[in-house]
């Protein structure tokens, strides 16, 4: 496990230029540590029956079972059990922040790549939306192998953009989804978090599984600065001169209040929430997804 974790170290992964390779290393490394995982059984061939309901297409009734049990059961086909996963990746200016290692955007790109690879490996369909203050890339969810390469190429060319506006892509996505989907939001949530979470709640209310990966840099979480400096907001361009040591405590309190708000609001509305430190390995994110995937589907 420890060896595999080394491969999942973000700083090591950042050295790999090939994004496919990076995704494969992450996923394979992760899976090799799951020898006896109880989640190993889920498969695209899984079948199930349910009682007939008015409106169901009569062509889907399992007539053989009806002959044996004299009850109408609707046969659920394999394609219904496939996951449609849409990954929303925040590429706003704040995601470009790095305190030394991989930036939040790099981390997010790696995470999105790994998730895409992972999803495709499960024969699920995966799509990608990148956004800042508007949608920059939109790749519909598909499960064909060349599609993965399309996603990875898109991810490899990403550059940080402008301000964050996660509400718009989420709203657009909600309007376009006609099936239950797995929505993954990868963002630092440095936006109007109240509106973002409300939109996520709406998505969740529509029956979608929603998981939020909030990515924060280690420096953002610990605020290790000491020397009096002029801090410049990467999105707004505003500057603020302060002595960090004197306000560190207040900063951390403000930050934790923000993170706590995000976590509580997500959890209370059924949105999975996972705070990721760019200094931490990616397996936590994958575990989080896998747990959610196994529970939901």
């Amino acid at each position, binding site marked *: 496990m420890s060896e595999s974790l080394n491969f999942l170290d973000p700083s090591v992964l950042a050295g790999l230029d090939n994004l496919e390779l990076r995704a494969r290393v992450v996923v394979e490394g992760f899976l090799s540590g799951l020898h006896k995982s109880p989640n190993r059984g889920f498969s695209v061939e899984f079948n199930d029956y349910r009682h007939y309901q008015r409106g169901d297409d009569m062509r889907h009734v399992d007539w053989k079972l009806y002959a044996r049990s004299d009850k109408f059961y609707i046969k659920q086909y394999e394609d219904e059990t496939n996951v449609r996963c849409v990954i929303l990746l925040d590429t706003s200016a*704040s995601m470009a922040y790095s305190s030394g290692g991989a930036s939040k955007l790099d981390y997010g790109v790696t995470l999105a790549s790994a998730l895409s690879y992972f999803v495709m490996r499960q024969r699920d369909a995966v799509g990608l939306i990148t956004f800042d203050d508007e949608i920059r890339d939109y790749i519909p969810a598909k499960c064909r192998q060349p599609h993965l390469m399309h996603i990875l190429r898109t991810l490899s060319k990403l550059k940080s953009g402008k301000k964050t506006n996660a509400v718009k892509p989420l709203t657009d996505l909600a309007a376009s989804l006609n099936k239950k989907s797995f929505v993954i939001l990868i963002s630092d949530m*440095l936006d109007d978090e109240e509106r973002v979470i409300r939109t996520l709640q709406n998505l969740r209310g529509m029956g979608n599984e929603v998981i939020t990966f909030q990515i924060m840099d280690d420096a953002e979480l610990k605020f290790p600065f000491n020397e009096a*400096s002029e*801090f*410049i907001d990467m999105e*707004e361009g505003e500057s603020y001169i*302060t002595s960090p040591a004197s306000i560190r405590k*207040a900063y951390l309190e403000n930050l934790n209040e923000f993170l706590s708000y995000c976590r509580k609001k997500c959890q209370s509305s059924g949105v999975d929430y996972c705070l990721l430190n760019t200094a931490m390995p990616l397996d936590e994110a994958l575990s989080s997804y896998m747990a959610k995937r196994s529970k939901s589907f």
Partner: protein
Amino acid sequence: MVFLTPLFLIGLLAAAIPIAIHLIRREKPPKVMFSTIRFLKKTSKKLVLFQHLQQILLLLLRSLVIVLLVLAFARPLIDRSIARLLDVDPQSAVVLIDLSMSMQYGETFERAKTEALDIIGSMTSGDEVALIGFSDGAQLVSDFNSDLDSVRSTINEISAAGFGRTRYLPNLRLADQMLEESRFENRAVYLISDFQAADIEAFDETWKLAPGVAFTGIDVGLEESTNLAITDVRSPERLLENASEQEILVRVRSTGTVYLQEGDVSLIVNGEVIDRKSVDLGDRSEEVVTFSTAFETEGSYYGEIRIGGDAFEADNSYYFTVDVLPKISVLTINGEASENWYDDEGHWFGLAVGGAERSPFELVNLTPGELNEAVLRQSDVLVLLNVGNLTDDQTEIIVDYVIEGGALLVAPGDRVDPVSFNNQFESVAPALLEAQGLPNGNDYLVIADYDRRHPILRPIESDWSARFQGHWRLSPTQDSEVLMQFDNTEPALVERQVGDGSVILFASAMDLEWNNLPLQSLFLPFVHETLRHLVQPELKQKAYSVGDSFSVNLDENAGSVSARAPNGDEIIFTNTDFITQVSEPGFVTVEAGGAEMRFAINTLPEESNFARMPVENLFDSIINPDTNPIKSREVQNEQLAEELEQPQRLWWWILSLVMALVLVEALIANRTYR
């Protein structure tokens, strides 16, 4: 509070370093790109304010640490202590300021005033200060005064240095005497001067300041000075009209510490420039410039020699006067006239009076019978040469002439009848004729004694070697004065003032019959001086130096006298002798009895010499060996302060405070900065 090493206080400027660093760094803090500043901006305003307060506090602490360190090194002393100690030992000081003419050079006098004010500034309350402004004498004396502001005012009121000569010793003696009566034991003399070397020879090695009197010499003179001075002028004082051209000699000398080679000299008479000559000293220290000019007409002339081309104006003029008098009219009555010169009684006298080319006399020779009042009234002096047959009317005319201001010279010979002479001239004659004194054989008389101070005889220094084989024994009247005696103690020359006139009686004839005086070299000056004395008043001195006392009234019968100083101010006389003392060069104009005359006042050549002496020489000359230790007020204060500072040890407490402040600073800085 006072400081023992106040130079360290310059380090207080370093207190600005933290502020400067703060201001510099405040302008350029490092920039940090950060994802968002929303959590920074949400920090409490109180926290931000506190942060600013912390920064200001740190700033103040760091500056305070520097200030305290500087103060500790400056070794502070609580003022009250030293003030108390100084109160215990107050000082009596005499400040002498040189006001002689040399102090007018450049800004020397202004520097002297500044130094004097500095000395007063160094005094503390309780001290008493006396002030002496001096040159040859003390011109300004301000007695001991504890009101230092008043002393400052007195110093500020001194407008300029004068024209007097520097004389240190009498003024130092005066200061010493004043200190004897001062209130405090701590006594000091401050002498502010340019320390001219001219007066150092006047110091008496035996005189010293009183024991315990400290002396401080403050030299305000210039190391380099340039000056051309007139050290001497030779000019005639009195001339007779139609005199030949006169030479005026001017001696010019470079007297500054830096040799000045060139200049110019002008002769000005009655305000008109007569001549101007350039002076090139070359490789000599002095040069004589000669002017030639004529003073032909009768009257008084006021001359000035003015020098130019140097930096010292005060000594650039020399003033002199020349009086031109009319010729003296001499009427000679010859009692033994002859065609043959060797028998003529008036031959030798005539040669002496009118023989010279430009004789100051106009001679008229008459016989006794030709004498009348009209002729007599046109003459300044009547000379009777062996006249023995005058009528009573003629005698009466002569007596009246004398009493009304005329002059009479009588030289009786063998033709004079003593009885007749005595009867006729008893009222005016200085002496009566007793009998002819004719020594036997080859015996003779000589002049044995004479009044050397008399105006007639003073200029005649020659040996009286004339031999008198014949003479008249004289019996002087009570109001007459014997001016000359034979070796047998009989009078030879007698003078008497009668009315407004005067009469001189010579006890022998003025030819070779009774003596060989006419053959002597002194005969001519004797005759000239006698006639001039009878007619003209004695030549009075009309040239003085600055500071001299003199009477401006040359004519005792002049009546009202008024005088103006060279600057035009009227001179107020406080005495009936009209004696005054003039303190600046120029002409003193006097009106006496309707006549105007001038006195020339000149600067002293010693003051033009800028050669200097070291202050130490003067110090060594006057300081008393018993004045031990010789400490200036500053040294005393420093020693007292050090003694006081030892137990106080304020620096130790300050350093302890600095240590505490450094700790506090470290704690605060650790919370604020890395």
